Each structure stands twice: as structure tokens, then as C-alpha cells.
């Protein structure tokens, strides 16, 4: 579904992504892990066109999308949610989703008719129901709780009916209980929609419990890939993680 | 347009010298105002549109002090300090309330004060223009350098301005105060977390900016007639200077001010009717090619 070949990107001489080759099969659920500064978010940014890669190919199906603009990549079916919820604070929850639905259908530059266009309503309702925000539909997005804002961020991506969904730390900044609720919701979404889902996560319990496969990044390269079991016992991973832990302990 | 005249001028040494010194002189006073504007923007991220009014206050303070005491030194020092204090009070009482709002609110507060101060000056000092006159110490014939003419007062002015530029540069790069100011500019919340009183820093920067504006107003007083609203044209020009030089860069303000001085000085020979247009054209081109200005840091 999504294939990355020999991806390179450097910022001001620092190699953030240093030759990544990865493949994500259709309908798979993959976790991307790695220590801080491993290049996880940069990897997402490259896939979604926030930056163009210096080298390498990004294949969605068979199309190379490397170097396309974000909107064009999004239109080809890659959705994304952010580590810090990225929403539209002065719009209500419903307006937010309707805006996304309109955009997805290419109606967002329509001048002739009123917002929202009727046919969009049903889809918006469905998305809200999927993430469980139906009851809060008329609230201002900016007034939602942190968790709900993260859900709304994901809902925005869902409204685009993506083939590939990238979630950057869906549980960031949440309490333990909330985390499990959130990841449960995400898992249910994946089961219902059967899209290719890639998520960045720090909580290893979550990763090991939910991810079908795990990809470990370190210093802009792929350190390891495999199932929970394989990764758990992978010597390089242990070294990378423990190494950082040691350094932290010493520092 | 008269490109022929410009070419003729550029081919004679005395014309080049006189026009260049003329441009430098115009640039110097402009620099003092622009430096304050740039400093305030660099630290507080606020475009202080009432900076011209502070310059006006400086000139009027100097007029009053000079008339009362007869000492030019007291007039200059007193009005610089006076305007600096005014800047501090203004920042604490009004500007500090709109830091976290829309840039439009900041604009509005400044605009309100421009209007209020213009009228206040008219009420206090009258609607008629005033002239302070040249202090006796500077009433002497100009110096001739290679066919170019340089008045004594302007020599003094250039000296003072360069001294201030140097001091300002040292203050910002070599002292603890400068480090704090630069840190507060980059990350105010972090700086506050380190136990530094950012309110004091911001107030201090505003006071310093006001001091510079007051100083330039006082230094301008002997050669410029004073009238309510005089801050306006200097505001526009120093605004152009800071945008060209780079908002927040003192060095940029100096280069920008000298550049504008030279554009005006040679422009008045080559294209006398469109010098202002050229300044805005210049500003437009700089913004298009390098929005943060010639010496500004990329955002």
C-alpha cells in the first residue's frame, strides 16, 4: 500500500532521515517507535508532503508521491493527525467535520450555495459517531478537553476517508486510563474502516498490545522491524533503548 | 527624472562627498529612532507605531528644558530620560495589556496614543510651530573636507549616534542584561521560568527604546521646527528603515538608516519627485525577496 524507498532528508546539515526503506501493507496496523530524535515525526512530515525529501521515493500504491504538495498528497488518500491536537478552535465540532467533508469532496471552494451542503451532513454524523463526539457536536472546538481535541483531530483525518492514516502519538499528554480508552477507540476505527494505519507511540504496553508489526527508527534509519515478540527480544532495540536510559541516568 | 544630473554628480568628487555626508547625516537621526523601534520589535514582537510620538515628545521636552535652563546638555539628557520614563509608564499601563492579543489591538493602542499625544502637545505647547535655535557652542562655520562641507553640529551628531550604536551593541552582546533581553526575546516563558522578571525586561526595553527616541528628538530640536504631528513622517521613515534592515536587528537599523539617507540624498538629484516612491519600492523589494529584512533572522 505505502512503500518508502531510500528516503533521505537533512535539515541544515543534520541528517534527520538517513536512508529509510519500509513497506506498509494494505489494511495493516503498524506502530513506529524509537527514541526521541529518531526521526519519527520527520518521517510523517515527509510522507505527507510537509517537506520534500532530498532523495528517495514514496509510493502510494504504484504512484510516486514524493515532492507533491500536502494538499495533493492528502487528496490521494493519506490522512494525518498530530501530536499536539491541530484543530480549528473557533469552529464548532460539527462545523469542523463538515469543513473537512466539504474539502474531501472538493466543495470547499464552492461559492454558490450555503454551507454545509446537504449531502455532507450524513457523512459528518457518521464520523462524529465513529469517534464518539456526537454529543459534543455543537460545542466550540477550542473549549473541548484535551482528549476530545485529540479525537477531533483524528476525526478530521477520518472525514477524508483516507486509505492510509498517520497518527502521531494519539495518546500523548493523557492519563493512563484515558490512554487506553483512546487507543481502544483508534483500534475500533481501524477494525471498522480497514485502512492502513500507522501510529507513533511511546507507551510500549500499548504498542505491544495493539500493533501488528512494529518499526523501530533510530537516528533516521530503520533499526528493526517485526512483530511484538521479535522486537521485544531484538538486541539492537534493547541496546538503543537501554543505552538512552543509561545515558539519561548518568546525565 | 534626471538621470543625467545624477551621472554628473557621481562623476565629481565634491558632489559625491557632500551628498554622501548629507545622506549619512539624515541617516543618523533616523537610526536613533529606528534602533528603538527595532529593539522593541525584536524583544517584545510589538510594532510600536507611536514611536514617532516619543520622538516628538523628546523634541518638545528639550525645547522646554533648554528654554528654562539654557543648557543644551541638560536639555538632551533630561528629555532622553523623561521620554524613557514615559515609555516605561506607557508600556506598564497600556501596552503590556495587549501583548497576548491580536496585532491589531497593539496597533490600535498605539494609534490612540498618537492621536492623544498630538493633541496634548497642541494644548500644552500651542499649535504654532516652535524652533529651539542652535546652541551657542555649535554656532561656528562648517568644516571643509576635500571640497565637501560638514557642519560642526552634524559632526557632533554623527559622533553621538555612533557612540550610542556602539554602546547599544555592547550592551546587547556583551552584558548579562543583553543576554537576558535576547533570551526574553526568543522565549519569554522559558526566561520567566528561570526566575527572571520578564515584566521588568519588557518595561526596560520599552524605556530604552523611548530613551533613544527622546534622545533623537532632543538632538533634532536645534535643526528642526517643532509642531504637533511632527512624529509622523519620522515614524514612516524609521518604519521603512527597520523593515529594510530587519525588524529586531540594531545593525540592520544602522545600515537601513544610512541606506535610506543615501537614497534620499542621491535621489534628490536623480529623481527628485519620486524619492519617497523609491523608498517604498525598496521596502517592497526587500520584503518580497527577504521578508525578515537584510539583517533580520529568518523566522
Amino acid at each position, binding site marked *: 500500500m505505502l512503500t518508502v524507498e531510500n528516503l533521505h532528508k537533512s535539515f541544515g546539515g543534520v541528517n534527520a532521515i538517513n536512508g529509510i526503506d519500509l513497506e506498509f501493507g494494505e489494511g495493516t496496523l503498524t506502530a513506529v517507535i524509537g527514541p526521541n530524535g529518531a526521526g519519527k515525526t520527520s518521517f510523517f512530515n515527509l510522507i505527507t508532503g510537509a517537506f520534500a525529501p532530498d532523495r528517495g521515493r514514496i509510493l502510494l500504491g504504484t504512484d510516486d508521491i514524493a515532492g507533491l504538495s500536502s494538499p495533493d498528497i492528502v487528496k490521494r488518500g493519506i490522512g494525518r493527525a498530530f501530536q499536539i491536537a491541530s484543530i480549528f478552535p473557533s469552529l464548532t465540532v460539527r462545523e469542523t467535520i463538515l469543513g473537512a467533508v466539504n474539502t474531501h469532496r472538493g466543495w470547499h471552494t464552492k461559492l454558490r450555495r450555503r454551507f454545509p451542503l446537504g449531502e455532507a451532513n450524513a457523512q459528518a454524523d457518521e464520523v462524529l459517531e465513529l469517534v464518539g463526539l456526537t454529543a459534543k457536536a455543537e460545542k466550540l472546538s477550542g473549549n473541548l478537553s484535551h482528549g476530545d481535541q485529540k479525537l477531533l483531530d483524528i476525526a478530521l483525518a477520518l472525514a477524508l476517508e483516507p486509505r492510509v492514516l498517520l497518527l502521531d502519538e494519539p495518546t500523548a499528554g493523557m492519563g493512563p486510563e484515558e490512554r487506553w480508552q483512546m487507543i481502544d477507540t483508534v483500534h475500533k476505527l481501524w477494525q471498522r474502516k480497514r485502512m492502513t494505519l500507522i501510529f507513533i507511540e511511546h507507551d510500549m504496553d500499548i504498542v505491544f498490545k495493539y500493533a501488528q508489526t512494529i518499526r523501530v527508527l533510530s537516528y533516521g534509519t530503520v533499526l528493526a522491524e517485526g512483530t511484538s515478540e521479535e522486537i521485544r527480544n531484538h538486541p539492537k532495540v534493547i541496546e538503543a533503548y537501554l543505552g538512552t536510559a543509561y545515558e539519561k541516568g548518568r546525565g | 527624472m534626471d538621470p543625467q544630473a545624477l551621472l554628473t554628480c557621481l562623476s565629481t568628487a565634491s558632489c559625491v562627498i557632500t551628498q554622501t555626508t548629507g545622506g549619512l547625516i539624515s541617516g543618523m537621526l533616523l537610526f536613533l529612532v529606528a534602533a528603538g523601534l527595532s529593539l522593541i520589535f525584536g524583544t517584545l514582537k510589538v510594532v510600536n507605531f507611536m514611536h514617532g510620538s516619543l520622538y516628538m515628545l523628546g523634541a518638545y521636552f528639550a525645547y522646554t528644558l533648554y528654554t528654562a535652563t539654557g543648557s543644551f546638555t541638560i536639555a538632551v539628557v533630561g528629555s532622553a530620560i523623561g521620554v524613557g520614563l514615559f515609555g516605561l509608564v506607557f508600556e506598564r499601563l497600556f501596552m503590556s495589556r495587549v501583548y497576548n492579543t491580536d496585532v491589531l489591538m497593539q496597533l490600535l493602542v498605539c494609534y490612540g496614543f498618537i492621536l492623544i499625544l498630538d493633541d496634548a502637545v*497642541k494644548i500644552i505647547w500651542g499649535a504654532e510651530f516652535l524652533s529651539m535655535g542652535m546652541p551657542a557652542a555649535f554656532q561656528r562655520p562648517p568644516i571643509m573636507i576635500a571640497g565637501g562641507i560638514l557642519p560642526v553640529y552634524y559632526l557632533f551628531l554623527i559622533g553621538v549616534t555612533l557612540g550610542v550604536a556602539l554602546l547599544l551593541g555592547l550592551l546587547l552582546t556583551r552584558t548579562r542584561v543583553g543576554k537576558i533581553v535576547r533570551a526574553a526575546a526568543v522565549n519569554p516563558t522559558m526566561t520567566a521560568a528561570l526566575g527572571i522578571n520578564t515584566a521588568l525586561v519588557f518595561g526596560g526595553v520599552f524605556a530604552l527604546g523611548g530613551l533613544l527616541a527622546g534622545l533623537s528628538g532632543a538632538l533634532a530640536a536645534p535643526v528642526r521646527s517643532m509642531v504637533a504631528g511632527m512624529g509622523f513622517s519620522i515614524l514612516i521613515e524609521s518604519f521603512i528603515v527597520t523593515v529594510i534592515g530587519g525588524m529586531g536587528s540594531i545593525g540592520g537599523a544602522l545600515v537601513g538608516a544610512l541606506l535610506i539617507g543615501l537614497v534620499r540624498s542621491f535621489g534628490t538629484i536623480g529623481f527628485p519627485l519620486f524619492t519617497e516612491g523609491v523608498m517604498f519600492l525598496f521596502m517592497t523589494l526587500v520584503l518580497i525577496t527577504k521578508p525578515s529584512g537584510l539583517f533580520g533572522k529568518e523566522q
Partner: protein
Amino acid sequence: MGDGNHIEEETMTDTQRPRRTRRGFIKAAGALTASGLAFPYVSRAQDKPIRVGVPTILSGRVAQLGISSRNALQIDVDKFNAAGGLGGRKLELITRDSKGKPDEAANNTRQLINGDGCEIIISAESSAGAFAVQEVIRELKVLCIHTNSETSSLSADPKIRVPTAFRTARQGIHDAIVSAAYAGSVAKAKGLKTWMSCSPDYAYGRDNTSLFLEYMKRFHPEIELVGEAWPKLFQADYTENITKILQAKPQALYSCLWAGDLVSFLDQSGIYNLFAQTTLFAINMADYTTLTAVKNLPAGIHSSSRYLKTFPAVPENAAWGDAYKAKFGDFPTNWSWENSLAMTFLTTALKKTNSTDGAKLADAMRGMKVKSPFGADGTVTMRAEDQTTIGYAIGWGTTIPKEPYVPTVTPGDWKSILEHEAEWKKKMGFA
């Protein structure tokens, strides 16, 4: 119907006439709602004072223009009212600040007429404002006297002229002819061959200077123009212009900078010692506010008489200047006497017609000759053909640093002025 309704009648166009019944209803409705809904513009009833609207500039850098104009008007209004007014109706001045913006001037004039019920307009505006007021007068047709705009085309150009609009200000072309005649004779006597100009870059500055230079060349072809400097209006720093002049080294410099700008220019030129090598002809120097504002006023600046209480040297003029100073603490300005002259014409016309009707007053004003302390021969005439004043006192002299500042003034010759003006008009296609 009292006089108050004249304007309304006068300005009603043909399309409005058939709607008389509706207008009746409008008036009734208006009376009913006036108190409750009081829109700020409520017309006053008749038999109240004759309101004279004065759009002018009271704020910003030119505030002095409006203030010294208004002061002069007030003196004459008080005098007129004390003498019984017009059959019991007193004059009332309503000034409105246009802040120096032409569109505000136009708008204020409309409001003064349509809202405040002013029956007469004295437009104490700068040139840009005066042209804007002129367009309003063209439409609303009340009597208007421009008192401060010196731009010749305002009255000379038939396309711009309006039947009910007059001017009591000095006029650019008159100034230019007198100035060139005077400056030329000085140039000849002292051998000033190379000339330069330094004037503000706006309509007045450009017109004034180009006319002066045109007549200079006509009267004295041997004179050579070696350069022009054009500072902006209200420019703070004249250094680059001064250095440009220093480069060109002219023997004489002509400037129509005025008020604060002229003071700044003199202050800044002073430190370059500019006037050691160059003789200055500053047409707007001899005005008390400017003369007194310059510290260390250089001696020997040639200037036209803006306002001097010693010129014309008649007791009425001195008395008027002193009375003004006694009342307002300052000496009057050039704008003050121009406004006072307007009041002389206005009150004379009011008495003559016993009406405030624009057309009637205009008929009376055309060709009117009044006694005035500001007349070259004790009288000033409102020329009928272009509705502007002639015969006012105008002359040039040189400055000294203390009172009376310009001890001797060489008056201009009106016969010569009028001849050259007629020729100029023909050339411009105005006559």
C-alpha cells in the same frame, strides 16, 4: 418664508419639484420625530442667526492656518453683530475641522450647509481642500469665499470656476509677477546671475515656483537656472536639498517653503552657512509667526509681504494688527488678513442685498470695491470676470532680525500685474 428656506428652495432641482406634497409629509414626519430620533443633523428654524460655515484645518501640522483664520473672522463677526447685524439677524460662525483632508473638507461643507443650515461658506482651506469645497458649492450653490487658497486656476480656469464662489486670497500669478519684477531688479543691481529653487513638492509649491521662474526668465533672460530642489511638504530633514544647493553654488535661491518648513530649512541651512554664498528670496518669510519662530533670523532675506502691520503703512492696518494681538496674544498671519477681507466683502454684500441668497449675494459681490486696510490704495476690488480680488497690498523687502522685521517694502505695481496676468490667461486658454 424667511431667509432660512432660501437654500432649500435654491438647491431643489427640477426632479424634486413635482414632489411637493411628499415634501410636506416629510416635513411633518420630520417635526414629529425630530425630538425622539434626533439625528445629529437637525436643521434650525428661520429667523435665527445667519450661519456662516467655515470648513478649515484646526488639527495637525497646519492647525495654525485654521486658527489664525478663525480668529480674524471672529473679530469681524463680533464687530458686525455689535453694530446690529443684518436687520437684527446676527452672524454666527460654525467652524469645522477637515484635518487637512480634501474629502473631509467636501464632506464638512456639505454638512455645514445641509445639516447645520449654514447659508454662507467661508472656505479657509488649503488649496487641495478649496478645490474639494468648490465641487460642493457647484452643486449646492450657496455663497462661498475661498480665503486661503492661492492656486490661480481655482478662479482663473473657467472649467473650475463656480458662479457663487469667490476668492479673497492673494493669487499665485499676481505673486509671481511681483516677485519676478522685484527679484529681477535685485538680481540686476547685485549681479545675481545663477539661480536655483527649493520649494515644497506639492501643487502650490510647483505652481508658484514654475510661474516665478517663467516670469524671471521673461523679465531677465540673462538669468540662468542651475538646479531645482524639491523637498516634500512637511519634510523634517532638508540636508540632502541643502547639500544639493551647496553643490550647484547658485548666487540666489528662490523658495516658497512656508511656516514650520521654512523655519526648519533656515535652521538647517544656517549650520551649513548656506546664506554666506547665496542670497535667499523666500516669498513666505515675512509673516510674524515665521519671523518670530526663527532663532537668529539672518538679515537680508528677501521676502514678499505675507502680513506686516507696517505694510501698507496706514493706521488702520496697524490698529487691526494690534487689536488682533491684544485679543489672541499673537500677531495675525497672512491667512488672517485674507479672512478679514472676506468678511468685509461679505458684510458689505449682505447689507446691500439684505439677503443671504447665494445668487443675489454673488451678483452684489461681482465687481464690488471695498475700503480695506489691506488695499494697495486703501481699496480692494472683487474683479467681476473671475471673482477674485485685485488691488490688495503686495510687495517685497528685506529682513532685519528685530521688529519691524521688514523695515521697507517695495510695493508691486498693479498696472503691470494686471497686464501680465491678462497675457498669461490668454496663453493658458483661460480668457
